């Protein structure tokens, strides 16, 4: 379970090395990554924009096609008229409630499982099974139980976000330094004291990584749940637009979801940096 996080951590850890090497070189070399990175995105957008003008398309294909300027226009109109706020609010509340419940349940349960080998052994088959299975499989069942409204969405978000938080908390707690735990225990700390003084501070970076994964899954959960069984929300707008061939609206919705996802992940990344500032290995990495 933890290798996923390890691989992601590898990607993240490798990034600063490039920046480290850059300042000693010339101006072009210093800005090369940024220029090339932005450049490729700009080129892609330009090709997408101008390709339909250079090539003549069949009438049928044109119906399904859109260009970036049209998408930008739609996005602007959605925000300018305020039409986006209500469905976005519906989606965001499902996201927020589901993620909060996942945190409230996942954190204590993860700590508990990390501290007790017996409980961990008992829960392990369920966690493995539910984590491997796409949560989407439960959607028809949840729709049957909870109806088309807010709560079936909340449930999908909750199931999706719970496991990254739970598994990473568990991993972080298990990796706590045995010596520190024994020291604190020798000085008469209770299990609660051990958790507060050693286990939780040690697990924090893991928990934050879990949170980052959970956000991605939660956004996915909102989108999917709204596609298949809901009557309000940004996902619903996208499905309706797709069935009316309003391709620009679908892309506008995708961009809003992607922006939200990136924004939340960025905020968690800030939190991660702030929380791990005291760590010696982090200092040496700078």
């Amino acid at each position, binding site marked *: 379970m933890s290798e996923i996080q390890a691989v992601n951590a590898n990607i993240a850890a490798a990034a600063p090395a490039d920046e480290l090497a850059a300042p000693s070189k010339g101006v072009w070399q210093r800005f090369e990554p940024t220029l*090339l990175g932005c450049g490729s995105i700009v080129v892609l957008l330009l090709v997408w924009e101008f390709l339909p003008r250079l090539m003549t398309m069949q009438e049928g294909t044109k119906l399904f096609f859109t260009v970036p300027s049209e998408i930008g226009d739609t996005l602007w109109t959605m925000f300018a008229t305020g039409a986006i706020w209500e469905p976005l609010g519906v989606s965001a509340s499902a996201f927020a409630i589901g993620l909060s419940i996942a945190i409230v349940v996942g954190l204590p349960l993860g700590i508990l499982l990390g501290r007790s080998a017996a409980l961990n052994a*008992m829960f392990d088959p369920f966690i493995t099974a539910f984590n491997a299975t796409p949560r989407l499989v439960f959607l028809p069942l949840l729709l*049957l139980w909870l109806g088309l409204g807010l709560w079936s969405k909340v449930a999908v978000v909750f199931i999706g976000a719970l496991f990254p938080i739970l598994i990473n908390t568990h991993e972080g707690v298990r990796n706590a330094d045995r010596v520190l735990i024994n020291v604190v225990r020798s000085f008469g700390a209770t299990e609660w004291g051990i958790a507060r003084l050693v286990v939780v501070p040690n697990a924090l970076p893991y928990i934050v990584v879990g949170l980052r994964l959970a956000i991605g899954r939660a956004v996915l959960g909102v989108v999917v749940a709204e596609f298949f069984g809901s009557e309000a929300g940004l996902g619903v707008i996208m499905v309706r637009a797709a069935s009316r061939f309003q391709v620009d609206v679908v892309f506008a919705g995708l961009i809003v979801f992607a922006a939200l996802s990136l924004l939340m992940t960025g905020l968690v990344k800030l939190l991660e940096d702030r929380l791990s500032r005291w760590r010696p290995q982090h200092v040496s990495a700078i």
Partner: protein
Amino acid sequence: MMDDTASRLSFPTRYRKALLGSLAVVLFFAAWQAIFLVVPFNPLFISKPSLIASGLVDLVTSGDLFRDVAVSAVPFFYGFSAAVVIGVPLGIVMGWRVRVGYALDPLMTVFYASPLVALAPLVVIFFGVGVGGKTLIIFLLSVFPFIFNAYAGVRAVDPLLINVVRSLGGSERDLYFKVILPSVLPYIVAGARIAVGRALIGVLVGEFFAASEGIGYAISRFGDIFALDRMFGCIITIMVIAVVLTEGIRWSERTAFPWRTAH
């Protein structure tokens, strides 16, 4: 070292984890079955293990289950293979050619971070509900773990090995096949494990949307007609497939690259 100590322990101590795990699973199903002795049973909203078991037996003996799984397996196989064939070389080139990496990294990150499932309605409109549409959804979802893991794997290649091959006169081709590929393989297998989960999401999304056969379609149809025993049967089938695939890859990781997971 572990085996040494393990062989001297008694049976219950040795298999404590597995025993506790199986016990918990058995207890869970027993409790599920037993609770309806106290709580009134409404077959329209919930099922019980005995009914699910007989529903599963029905599905298996009639051959419906195998047919549905086989139908879903075809786009899964195509999409996943395409993800490997395109994702791995792209990731390797991104890692090896620094400028390509600079150029594509932000773009790929944006794609990876955005919920690409949201494109499913469009894909269905463009390519229909057949194998083509489903394959594309599965490909889109599962290609990025391969790209990013191959990318990370190449950057983790030991520079010493590269220098040795170069000093001894190895060609670019030798570098790719003798140094880069072997050290990237563990990363790719780890990426495959993530990609399997995402590909399964693709199968379900494609089939929930619009399909007339397949395991995802079976789940939503049995839900629509309130046949909860068979619906749970299909859900459990998917869970088993998902666990077998991910744990199978995990097992092959441990067996093939023991140095990766040893610590």
